[in-house]
């Protein structure tokens, strides 16, 4: 009797696996990307290896340059002075709060089909994917438009006698952001519940309360820096950007220079960066045939059968459970690979530094590769699924309005040419890799006493980066099966 239930349960599971559920790979929307052709994949890979060594040779010649010095304050130029005006800021803040209110209203009052309501498309495509692109390529817009920050700021001004917040505990570091980011990625990539506007609205309300509680406890700034996960994410991506607002100035600098640091970042930030890197890769991996064969192997494995069965009997969706486990295992693999590399860097460079310190010096140099992969992975998705916002802007609640006469707009899937996406993908990944290797070398020159030691210390880092870049290229060359 038990045997038959077991077989039935596993058969059902195997079916879900092989039928590849109609659920979308990413939280939301269809993708029509073509995998990279082999010739492009191999030439990209070749360029990566060749360029890695060329950078080393170049660095040797001009080791004493400080790249952070090359920057211009745009607010000092008459043409850009208006950017600093308080009216401009007030306008941006009002627009942001209006959109925040609109999305919440649409979640709870609008039609509940994911494509009939503006909220899912706005949140998952325009805000999450779009703002990530914007942060990395242009600058940190989120600091200006963050509705939680703005609202709490207003609330503080209204309240005359403020209770002084407690000091933010040092040991807590960026761990709140790490935890919240894990929850967010789980919702984005694994759970299908947040495609429904009402669930999305509930998630937003829950997150708002968490954020305001954190701000009330530790103060607005402290919580924004360590606990408001989107400030941390977009802030990290914006370190790459060429524009940077800082101390009332608005700098134009070389891209990726913001990822150089003058002191090591704390361990919690290292973990956060690696989690961000893996979450980008994770979405791609879930769409490869490799992932499908892992699932098939699991569903046929004799060893795992009893465990799977008891999970199923407990009413847990097996596919979601397995993905959730993978979401924790993959960052753990990345973290171990990175820590081993850092240990080797210390060995090769001969510096007496703790492993945590070394990882804090070098972790940010990996970010350009992640940004490049993110760009390649989401470019056509953003441009195609993002078009949904055009009809939805006219009818945000899905009740038949036609505010801007765009309600009947049909998606143009030919907006990006497949060949162009391929070239952009490969060029971005190669360029991201070059920047990563360069940044790591500059950091090594700051950490290690001699140029020679610094260069030798970068051999393991270069191996890690070539591996990471290859994985990114490889995923792009895999047929998408999810």
């Amino acid at each position: 009797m038990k045997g038959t239930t077991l077989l039935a349960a596993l058969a059902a599971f195997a079916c879900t696996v092989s039928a590849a559920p109609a659920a979308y790979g990413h939280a939301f929307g269809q993708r029509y990307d073509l995998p990279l052709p082999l010739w492009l994949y191999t030439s990209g890979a070749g360029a990566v290896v060749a360029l890695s060594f060329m950078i080393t040779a170049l660095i040797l010649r001009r080791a004493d340059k400080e790249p952070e010095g090359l920057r211009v304050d745009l607010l000092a130029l008459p043409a850009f002075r208006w950017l600093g005006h308080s009216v401009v800021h007030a306008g941006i803040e009002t627009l942001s709060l209006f959109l925040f209110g609109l999305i919440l209203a649409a979640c709870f009052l609008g039609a509940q089909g994911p494509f009939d309501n503006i909220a899912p498309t706005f949140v998952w495509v325009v805000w999450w994917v779009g703002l990530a692109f914007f942060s990395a390529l242009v600058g940190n817009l989120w600091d200006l438009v963050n509705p939680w920050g703005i609202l709490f700021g207003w609330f503080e001004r209204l309240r005359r006698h403020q209770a002084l917040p407690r000091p933010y505990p040092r040991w807590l570091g960026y761990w709140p952001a790490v935890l919240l980011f894990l929850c967010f990625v789980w919702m984005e990539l694994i759970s299908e519940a947040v495609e429904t506007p009402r669930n999305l609205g509930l998630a937003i309300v829950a997150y708002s309360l968490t954020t305001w509680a954190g701000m009330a406890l530790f103060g607005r700034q402290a919580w924004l820096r360590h606990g408001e996960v989107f400030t941390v994410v977009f802030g990290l991506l914006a370190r790459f950007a060429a524009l940077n607002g800082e101390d009332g100035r608005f700098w134009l600098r070389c891209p990726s220079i913001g990822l150089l640091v003058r002191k090591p970042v704390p361990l919690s930030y290292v973990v956060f960066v690696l989690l961000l890197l893996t979450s980008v890769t994770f979405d791609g991996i879930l769409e490869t045939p490799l992932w499908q064969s892992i699932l098939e192997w699991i569903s046929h494995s004799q060893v795992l059968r009893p465990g799977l069965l008891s999970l199923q009997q407990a009413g847990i969706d097996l596919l979601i459970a397995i993905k959730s486990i993978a979401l924790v295992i993959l960052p753990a693999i990345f973290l171990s690979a990175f820590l081993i590399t850092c240990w080797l860097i210390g060995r090769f460079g001969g510096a007496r530094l703790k492993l945590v310190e070394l990882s804090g010096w070098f972790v940010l140099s990996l970010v350009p590769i992640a940004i490049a992969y993110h760009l390649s992975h989401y470019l056509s998705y953003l441009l195609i699924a993002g078009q949904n916002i055009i009809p939805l802007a006219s009818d945000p609640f899905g009740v038949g309005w036609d505010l801007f006469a765009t309600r009947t707009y049909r998606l143009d899937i030919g907006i990006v040419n497949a060949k162009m996406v391929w070239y952009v993908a490969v060029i971005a990944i190669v360029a991201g890799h070059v920047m990563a290797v360069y940044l790591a070398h500059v950091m090594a020159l700051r950490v290690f006493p001699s140029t020679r030691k610094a260069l030798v210390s970068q051999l393991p880092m270069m191996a890690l980066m070539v591996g990471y870049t290859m994985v990114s290229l490889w995923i792009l060359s895999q047929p998408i099966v999810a």
Partner: protein
Amino acid sequence: MSSLLRRRTVLAGVVGGIIFPLISSTLGADDTRRFSVAITAGKVDKKNRTLRVDQGDKVVIIFSTDRPVDLHLHGIDKQILVVPGKLGELSFDAEVAGRFPIELHGSKAHGRLLYVEVLPR
């Protein structure tokens, strides 16, 4: 002399410009890619899981099935109903490159049937 030469070149260019598209469009009419796909219990053979065509092809897929299915070609947005005992024809112009799923819609069987890959020229 040289102006005569130039005139001839121009003439040849004009004639070529008219005739060549004519020829290629008549040839293009033969660029139809036909596939026949049998659906058994909501699934297709491994060799039919991905159908590859080139951008600009006309594509005709003839389906047969053992139970009624509602097929939806995403992206290109075509939908047909196929019933047992009758062949269903899904035809479209592959204008845009990409990887487009054909899904089974309706009742229980909701899932990917196969992919059409349109490769860029």
